[in-house]
């Protein structure tokens, strides 16, 4: 179909002015991809799909949403009322809003799986260090965007979650109080906070688009890693991206959309994991919910924060747990990429995945003494994993890596 389109006169006219043919060939029909990629390589395209869906649904939501914490009848606010208006009175507003709310969780789910793929198969290693680092920047901006967006409905968990997180900045020595006040726009979460968070919630996805462009560009310079983690040069090891991976990604997209649609239409709250029960209660600065927890995709880092008695150390540890991801390509010194040929790393990385899930569970649950210890041990393993990586090549006996595929 593409070949046919590229033979038309119209295409020739466009091509003479843009070089479209060269781009399509180098990036799509003649872009070489390893032929042995497994389904873990589908999550990049799914993440891109979710980014687009979040932006499109978000644009429609903004047409009806009103960022104002002005009180209305019954203890509600203009912002909360406008969300309920979207859910009840706007044609298919419920669909757009559930797609957006569930979409946030699904976006994080596919991005975490995408990152897990990178961890397991060593996709962050030379020459893909910068590709990985751009990816970590994307993760941080996503977390920021999600945090800002969660305030907008102005429910109880919006309000108290934002209160807890913005107070963290108060732990920074000297500048803490000032930074918190700038972020909040006052001395407590209120109307100015809502307005600036709304502004930033619109800004961050635009940043994401630009940086995702950089991520894809960096990928197309160094090309995809593969499950064997070896460099592929021979033409018979490669297949063109189109049609092979376009159809494989299309299949992945349809499969993913089926799950996504099932959740959106049949279980949008997902038992309080995607939309928290407390966020159906309007924000009330006089009544603190019994248990404040962020949405599931931020809970692993919340546990790391809570694992330390000192607030400052907790904040530093939480920041460090994200910052250390930037260093991963330089901490991991083994010449072998894929965990398939690194028996010790393989066990360590699978334990790391379980560890992050345990951290997430601890952060989501109401704190108990047992969970606190579990959380502290998991936090310790989180950092130990990274600390051990530079020393691993000294005693890890890697298996022989295959010559080809």
């Amino acid at each position, binding site marked *: 179909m593409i070949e046919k389109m590229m033979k038309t006169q119209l295409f020739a006219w466009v091509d003479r002015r843009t070089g479209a043919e060269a781009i399509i060939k180098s990036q799509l029909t003649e872009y070489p991809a390893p032929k042995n990629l497994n389904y873990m390589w589908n999550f990049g395209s799914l993440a891109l799909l979710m980014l687009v869906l979040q932006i499109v649904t978000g644009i429609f939501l903004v047409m009806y949403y009103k960022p104002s914490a002005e009180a209305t009848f019954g*203890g509600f606010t203009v912002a909360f009322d406008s969300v*309920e208006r979207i859910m009840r009175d706007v044609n298919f507003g419920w669909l757009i809003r559930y797609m957006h709310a569930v979409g946030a969780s699904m976006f994080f789910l596919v991005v975490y799986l995408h990152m897990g793929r990178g961890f397991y198969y060593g996709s962050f290693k030379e020459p893909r260090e910068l590709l990985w680092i751009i990816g970590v920047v994307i993760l941080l901006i996503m977390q920021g965007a999600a945090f800002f967006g969660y305030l907008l409905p102005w429910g109880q968990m919006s309000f108290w979650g934002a209160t807890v997180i913005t107070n963290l900045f108060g732990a920074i020595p000297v500048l803490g109080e000032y930074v918190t006040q700038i972020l909040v726009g006052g001395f407590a979460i209120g109307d100015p906070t809502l307005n600036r968070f709304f502004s930033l919630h619109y800004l961050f996805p635009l940043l994401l688009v630009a940086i995702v462009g950089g991520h894809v560009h960096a990928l197309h310079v160094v090309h995809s890693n593969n499950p064997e983690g070896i460099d592929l040069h021979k033409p018979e090891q490669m*297949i063109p991206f189109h049609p092979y991976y376009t159809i*494989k990604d299309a*299949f992945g997209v349809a499969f993913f959309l089926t799950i996504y649609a099932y959740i959106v239409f049949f279980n949008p709250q997902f038992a309080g994991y995607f939309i928290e029960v407390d966020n159906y209660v309007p924000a009330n600065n006089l009544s603190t919910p019994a248990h404040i927890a962020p949405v599931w995709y931020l809970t692993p880092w919340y546990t790391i924060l809570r694992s330390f008695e000192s607030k400052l150390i907790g904040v530093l540890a939480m920041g460090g747990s994200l910052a250390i991801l930037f260093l991963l390509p330089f901490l991991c010194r083994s010449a072998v990429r894929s965990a398939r040929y690194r028996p010790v790393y393989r066990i360590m990385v699978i334990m790391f995945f379980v560890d992050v899930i345990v951290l997430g*569970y601890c952060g989501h649950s109401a704190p108990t003494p047992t969970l606190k210890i579990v959380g502290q041990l998991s936090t310790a393993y989180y950092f130990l994993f990274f600390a051990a990586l530079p020393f691993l090549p000294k005693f890890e006996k890697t298996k022989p890596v295959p010559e080809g595929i």
Partner: protein
Amino acid sequence: MKTTNTLMAILAIAVMGFSTSAMASGGGAALKHAEIDVTNQEQLRRGLTVFVDVCMGCHSAKYMTYRGLMAYPELALTREEVDDLRGDKSLMSGMISDMSPEDATESYGKSPPDLSLIVPGRRGGADYIYSLMVGFEHDPDGKIPDGNYNPFYPGGRIAMPDPLSWLDHDAADTAELEQQAHDVSAFLAFIGDPHQNERRAIGCWVVGFLVLLTLVLWRLKVEVWKDVKH
């Protein structure tokens, strides 16, 4: 491939674990099960009657408009029925109680919560509402006065005084009171998300279509890939 499968299995189990771990109700007592059917027009209309006659003495449901009572096919009241209910309130008005929040605070010590989102906004949802309605008891410790003790309410002391007069009711009335509690729970579950039936109906078509699309694309993928040697 094997490692990938193991990985996916671990993650799938983790995700499922997250979704199924039920949250404990606020009050501690195990909730009673509410028999509700949010597609059953008769039950929803009976629930509306309980809501208007009992709940609206103090509570409002500001997001449920009188117009909505006609417009949602699940309720589909006639204009005459709605006019009877709304009195001189506008059709576009929410169902607002005649008791002002200030008067309620003076009488009961706190302002009664709006009930539009009470079912999605409480752990246990409709079961919690039903349990509250038929949960009034004498305080075994004798500290909390009758009508304010409800083991399903967090802390046990509730400001709402036994709306269905469940405490010390005649045994002959049990079935009727339970039915009223079921019905009003169903009504509140409906107005918490009034497009839920439409959503599920459309969802069947959407998911059905996507399953077919997935199958077609899967076969197409296999077809395109058949000349790639592994």
